[in-house]
């Protein structure tokens, strides 16, 4: 549905988005990750046709955004980062207005507005003017706007920003559900959302793609991925450590506060390592108090792959 080839954007001399290529099909939810100023919003603005690309090609459902902007825009729903809406309108008036611009009329228009009002829990503020809404409600109003024509492609820039924990949860569910039938791209700074909602995640740093894969494969890139922690009662820690080091699956064994931490040779083979340790414990007649394999941490991967402003300075 979404095809991006060599997408590049420069503001003056500075390259803000640098040669991004990827595609998102129906049924996929792509999470955009990256530090502040990485170029996530800029990339989304180009995809939605607000900013012209400096180079590269964007196709939405086969329509080139530069050559057939209207056809491409019709397929897309967009929640901008600012979550802007017209402050002097009521929620209802605003949604009706957007529905009209989306080409809906009459009964279809009313039904569409009714549907998104329910989806985004806006019933209680329907006739309130937008400037008097709290930030979260304003955000939800703009979110509702992006869903009004039931688009096949959804582009959302930080959709959970400013929402309370319940609403964050609702929005993640919504994204996951939308992702079953639509092509979705959303950006976030909350790494748990990648697990909660994405089928694939992409990390961008200074405009360049530094990682792209399923949440599990990204997590496997972390130092701690596949590491197994073992605690046994009885024998000395050093003895356990020595025994663990003999395993073929283990690459490094360290003792941390009465526990033994075993790193695997192959990061994706954490489960095999855990099994081997279990068998070892049975052979040695250890009483196992704790044994668990770590999946890896996204924030670790994120920190490793991106250069934050603090480090740069």
């Amino acid at each position: 549905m979404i095809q991006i080839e060599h997408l590049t954007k420069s503001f003056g001399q500075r390259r803000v988005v640098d040669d991004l290529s990827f595609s998102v099909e129906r049924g996929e939810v792509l999470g955009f990750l990256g530090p502040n100023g990485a170029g996530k919003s800029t990339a989304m603005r180009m995809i939605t046709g607000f900013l012209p690309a400096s180079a590269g090609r964007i196709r939405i459902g086969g329509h080139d955004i530069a050559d057939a902007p209207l056809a491409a825009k019709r397929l897309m729903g967009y929640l901008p980062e600012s979550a802007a809406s017209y402050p002097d309108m009521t929620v209802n008036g605003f949604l009706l207005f957007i529905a009209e611009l989306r080409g809906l009329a009459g009964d279809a228009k009313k039904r569409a507005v009714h549907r998104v009002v329910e989806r985004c829990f806006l019933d209680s503020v329907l006739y309130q003017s937008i400037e008097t809404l709290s930030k979260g409600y304003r955000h939800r109003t703009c979110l509702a706007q992006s869903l009004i024509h039931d688009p096949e492609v959804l582009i959302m820039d930080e959709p959970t920003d400013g929402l309370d924990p319940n609403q964050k949860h609702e929005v993640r569910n919504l994204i996951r559900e939308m992702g079953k039938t639509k092509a979705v791209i959303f950006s976030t700074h909350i790494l748990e959302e990648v697990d909660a909602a994405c089928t694939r995640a992409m990390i961008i740093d200074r405009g360049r793609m530094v990682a792209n894969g399923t949440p599990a494969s990204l997590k496997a890139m972390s130092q701690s991925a596949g590491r197994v922690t073992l605690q046994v009662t009885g024998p000395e820690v050093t003895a356990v450590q020595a025994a663990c080091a003999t395993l073929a699956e283990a690459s490094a064994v360290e003792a941390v506060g009465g526990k033994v931490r075993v790193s695997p040779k192959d990061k994706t083979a954490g489960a095999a390592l855990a099994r081997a340790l279990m068998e070892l414990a049975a052979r040695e007649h250890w009483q196992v108090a704790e044994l668990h394999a770590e999946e890896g941490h996204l924030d670790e991967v994120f920190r490793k792959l991106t250069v934050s402003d603090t480090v740069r300075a």
Partner: protein
Amino acid sequence: MNTTAFHHIRAIAKRELGSFFGSPVAYVFLVIFLLLTGFFTFTVGAFFERGEAGLASFFTWHPWLYLVLVPAVGMRLWAEERRAGTLELLLTMPINPWEAIVAKFLASWIFLGIALLLTFPVVLTVNWLGSPDNGQIFAGYLGSFFLAGAYLAITSMTSALTRNQVVAFIVSVVLCLFLILAGFSPVTDMLTRWASPALIDTVAAFSVMTHFEGFQRGVVDSRDLLFFVSIIAFALFATATILRNRRAG
């Protein structure tokens, strides 16, 4: 015009007018406009002392009155959308940018038209006092409406340049002032000392004064109309170009 374009224009213009009349600005503007037209017509324009049944003293002041009032109406057109971020929303909708430009222009123009229509007591007054040439008065109104449209289109253009309404206002006033002065007789008379009459006439041909004069005398000349329509078309076209090249900022 195809129907989808019409629907889009209607939706945007309706929203725009709604936001005008939903805010006190519209009413403040109307009151100020009516007070000022009254003041200029009856006091400065010496309406009664003239002893003629016509609205010359009414229309003479319009280019100067609009100089401040029209930019005040139009300055928010695009500057506000840009500042509030709704420009991003509007331009990612499946609409042609020119539809939004025309719609927003039309809405403000309609508003100015309403303000102008509300000056009808002046017309009633002259008709009550004497028997004026109502055709001439109609021509004056028509010219005044197009004059306002020309200023408004220029303001739309400057408003697209910036997110700051004050900057939009000032630049519009300066541009409109130029359009007045290029054909304002005290200025052109002064220039005859340095420039050739042909040059002065050429410059004056770009002035709203030159083209508004005919309407005031009751002459609806298609060339004068064409002049105002060209200014509007050009300025709106420039608005589109500016919006295309100054996205995001």
